[in-house]
């Protein structure tokens, strides 16, 4: 009778996750016991939880440890991504404080779901075993399905949630099938062991290929890479604005982390094969994302395509497959989160009650009526295009450098042409804001709550300060890129 061996479990490593989950549950309970009117402070408790978690992850920086018998790893790479996700969640909470009150949606569960999704992301990021990654992915996805359809009375939101659910489930089925095949071929689901067995060479190589391809599909769906991006525009447009902001930053970062970890740890020996796949994926994603965004009339939908395009730029970092490319992805992800959530914050402000003000025409004369919002949006847009002194430029510069270092000249040229195409639709917004003759009816005054202002300030800080003085963040990203 084998003696029961209790595996050594150090709860310290999973401290941040625990904090998040506990806060989420606390929120659920609190919502039941508090009266209707002062629901506001729930958001701030959620924010408190996020800040505590980020404090804990920050102090774990620079400390690497394999935990839960090889299923959960804590290293610089993980803590960097976790901080990025926390940043995304924190800013989303700030944006959705007034949103939830205006829309009259009960905000207890809303923040709980946000925190659950973030904890799911954490598991994905630190998972060094397929099981953990899968579990993290599912926890995140399911809470996002619920969040997407949170404003029940809106048809768009329901439709978005359903589409996201059906296609998400389909994608995770493919992912699972991939994991199963790789498990079958290599005999384990631990990334390190998969990597070893691949290096030593295994019999049925075809199984591995199909498995890896299915992995690419599963993860590709989550980051909306092109053949699997169809859900993104509809879901981004349908879901409530703060949720879209959250969806476009947090989950993407987590999926990239898992993607990187799986492909750089488990399947490095096949790098010679999968860089072509990523090369094609990146080009397709960039080009389709940018071209589709050209003729959009709805700002949220345009931003959906722009986030697809940015996923394309990030995929460029994959093709290199060396630490320089990974650090480029890390830095770009950080900058991207700042920019994207900032833009969605502005969209939320302009959309007002029941989100009907999201077409381009609704932004006419915004630059003059609300100079602060106008300038912020301009800076964020130019950062999305990648014009210097903004952080977007440094991010793109870094990614192009990593690609060019490996000699992918044509990939960079295509990316560069894509960013010129992207100028078209980003500038259309500035044209509407500043250059068209103002319509007679005055734009109603927009409510600027302190939390929204803080979110905007953070995004401006991220877009400009990182653009001017990025060196400390770059060193942090480079330190984090060495997956042990």
């Amino acid at each position, binding site marked *: 009778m084998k003696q029961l061996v209790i595996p050594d479990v150090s709860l310290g490593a999973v401290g941040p996750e625990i904090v998040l989950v506990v806060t989420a549950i606390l929120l659920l309970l609190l919502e039941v016991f508090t009266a209707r009117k002062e629901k506001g402070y729930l958001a701030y408790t959620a924010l408190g939880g996020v800040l505590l978690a980020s404090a804990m992850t920050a102090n774990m920086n620079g400390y690497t440890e394999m935990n839960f018998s090889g299923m959960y790893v804590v290293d610089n790479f993980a803590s960097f991504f976790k901080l990025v996700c926390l940043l995304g969640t924190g800013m989303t909470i700030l944006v959705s404080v007034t949103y939830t009150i205006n829309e009259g949606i009960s905000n207890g569960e809303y923040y709980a779901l946000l925190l659950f999704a973030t904890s799911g992301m954490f598991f994905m990021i630190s998972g060094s075993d397929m099981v953990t990654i899968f579990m993290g992915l599912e926890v995140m996805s399911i809470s996002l399905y619920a969040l997407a359809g949170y404003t029940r009375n809106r048809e768009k939101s329901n439709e978005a949630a*359903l*589409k996201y659910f*059906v*296609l998400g489930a*389909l*994608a995770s089925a*493919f992912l699972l099938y991939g994991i199963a095949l790789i498990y079958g071929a290599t005999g384990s689901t631990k990334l390190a062991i998969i990597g070893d067995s691949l290096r030593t060479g295994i019999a049925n190589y075809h199984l591995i*290929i*199909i498995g*890896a*391809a*299915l992995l*690419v*599909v599963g993860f*590709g*769906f989550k980051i909306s890479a*092109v*053949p*699997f991006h*169809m*859900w993104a*525009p*509809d879901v981004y447009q349908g879901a409530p604005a703060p949720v879209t902001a959250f969806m476009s930053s947090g989950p993407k970062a987590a999926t990239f982390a898992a993607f990187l970890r799986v492909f750089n740890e488990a399947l490095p020996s096949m790098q010679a*094969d*999968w860089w*072509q*796949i990523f090369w*094609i994926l990146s080009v397709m994603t960039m080009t*389709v994302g940018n*071209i*589709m*965004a*050209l*003729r959009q009339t709805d700002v949220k939908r345009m931003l959906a395509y722009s986030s697809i395009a940015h996923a394309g730029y990030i995929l460029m970092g994959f093709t290199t497959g060396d630490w320089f490319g990974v650090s480029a992805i890390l830095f770009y992800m950080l900058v991207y989160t700042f920019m994207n959530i900032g833009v969605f914050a502005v969209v939320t402000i302009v959309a007002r009650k029941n989100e009907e003000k999201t077409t381009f025409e609704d932004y006419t004369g915004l630059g003059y009526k609300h100079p602060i919002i106008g300038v912020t949006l301009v800076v964020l847009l130019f950062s999305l295009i990648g014009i210097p002194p903004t952080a977007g430029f440094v991010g793109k510069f870094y990614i192009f450098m990593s690609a060019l270092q490996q000699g992918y000249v044509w990939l960079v040229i295509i990316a560069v042409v894509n960013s010129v*195409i992207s100028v*078209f639709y980003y500038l259309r917004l500035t044209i509407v804001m500043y250059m068209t003759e103002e319509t007679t009816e005055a734009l109603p005054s927009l409510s600027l709550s302190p939390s929204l202002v803080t979110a905007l300030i953070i995004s401006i800080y991220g877009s400009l300060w990182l653009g001017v003085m990025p060196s400390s963040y770059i060193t942090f990203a480079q330190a984090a890129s060495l997956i042990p």
Partner: protein
Amino acid sequence: MTGLKLIWIVPILPLLGAITNGLIGKLLSKRAVTFVALGSTGFSALFALFAFIELLSLDPSSRISESILFTWIESDKFIAEAGIQIDPLSGVFMLIVTGVGFLIHIYSVGYMGHEDGYSRYFAYLNLFMFSMLLLVLGNNFLIMFIGWEGVGLCSYLLIGYYYDKNSAVDAGKKAFVVNRIGDFGFILAIMWIFWTFGSIDYTSVFPVAHEVLPIGGFTVTGITLLLFIGATGKSAQIPLYTWLPDAMEGPTPVSALIHAATMVTAGVYMVARCNALFNIAPTSMIVVASIGAITALFAATMGLYQYDIKRVLAYSTVSQLGYMFLACGLGAYVAAVFHVITHAFFKACLFLGSGSVIHGLSGEQDMRQMGGLKKLMPLTHITFLISTLAIAGIPVFAGFFSKDEILLSAFFGETQGHLIYWALATTAAAVTSFYMFRLYYLTFSGVLRSTDQHVRDHVHESPPVMTAPLAILAGLAILGGLLGLPIIKDAHILKSFLAPVFSTRGAIEQPHPPMQIEFLLMAVSVGVAVIGIMVARYFYYTNPESAKKLAKKEGWIKIVYRTIQNKYYVDEIYDAIFVKPIFLASRDLLWRIFDMKVIDGLVNGIANFFYKLSQTIRKTQTGFVRNYAMIMVLGVVAVISVWFIVLGD
């Protein structure tokens, strides 16, 4: 020696006059403006005289003095100083410009008295004096070029003085553009000279010209031809003369000063100055001579049937310039300069005379409206007659001596085909005397034919301020000849004075025919002139109707009459060949089609391509979940198959 060092004052004074009149002219009274203008030109003339006398005091061999003010452009090896050089040639021209210029200034006071842009006129005139002096006194090609374009600018401004008249401004623009075409050749020549000699100063280019450049070589011919293009532009020779007749739109004193005496002779000065280059480029000499001769005759014929008094004089200037270039082409630079001098006197006098006629007839320029002014304007008549005799080449008058020298050098020249030049020149002389006397008889003899009553009873002799210069110029037209009279055993004053400038290596030896052959030639030329006068007298004095009958006759005479009348349709031909096609080509071909359609079309096309592409791809986003799922599954299949293909190679 100090006089020569201060030579700078001669050009600077008119410049100061121009600046004062230009900037504050409006505020000053008319008297003050006159004082400034005349003062500056007067003193400049005075200083020019002192300098010239001081130059004479030097012994002939070292009659040259340079004074450099500052370095204008210095870039690595290329150095262009702002320097003035006075030597016999520039001395002579300086005197003409300042002398005749001063007289014309005095005349203009009377002529332009009642104009409102009075200060503007004198500002431009002084500026012209400055540029012309700079041109003549410059010590390197670039300074000459500044003067060159400066005079072009002033002629543009002065021709277009009556800027509310569109025809005047058009004429000004035409003059500037045609000059610019000439300058295009000149500037290329300067560059070529710099890169062959390493410098553009006269003193370092001319002495070594014959060593550096092989005689008749490609470079020297190229340089000289380009220089000559510049000269034709400025001195209105065959290809680029069309601007001079139109330049008559400007006020008459302007025509007198610029388009008779000084500016147009700039080309002759340039060719004379570069004689060292021209002498070693025989082909260019032939080109210069032949263009000179052809222009002489061609322009003379065009002068035949003009009815505007100033146009006749304009064509006669073009033809006289032809003579000067013919002389240069034959190597007789002295004869050319001599003719420049005499021409300056009598042509200025003719123009001012016609000016006083026009002034008298309050603006009437058409000869058919004139006549019988002999009695009404005696002084103008006398001076006009003297100058007409001078230009016709009647002995005693200056014209005869200078023109005769040119004919002489043509007759005895060594360049082959020189006899043809002589024949052309002589016939041109005949035609010249004919149209000059036609002009004389139509304006002064007979009875006043003017139909306008106002003109008829306002005919008056011009005030002394206008007739005094006329008298002086008429006097010079007579005495001018002395310069060339071979009194002391063929020691032709001017020749000996200018000898050092023109005695460069390769200069064509001037013929010294025996006395009697010289007299024979003189007789021929005088005879030809007299014939011209007689014919003119017959048609326009004895029986005026015959001229009209002749004009009516059908047949080939009509055709000839018509073509000459319309100046051989040269203007229309130029328009058709150059102006219209370039304008239309650039408007429709270059701008509308190429710029708009091709380049912009391409740019907008690419933008539309992306727009259409995005339109088509957007259709795939149908909104149906099942389509999305289908594309996803296809994506999966694609990824797997790509992976296998990749693995395959």
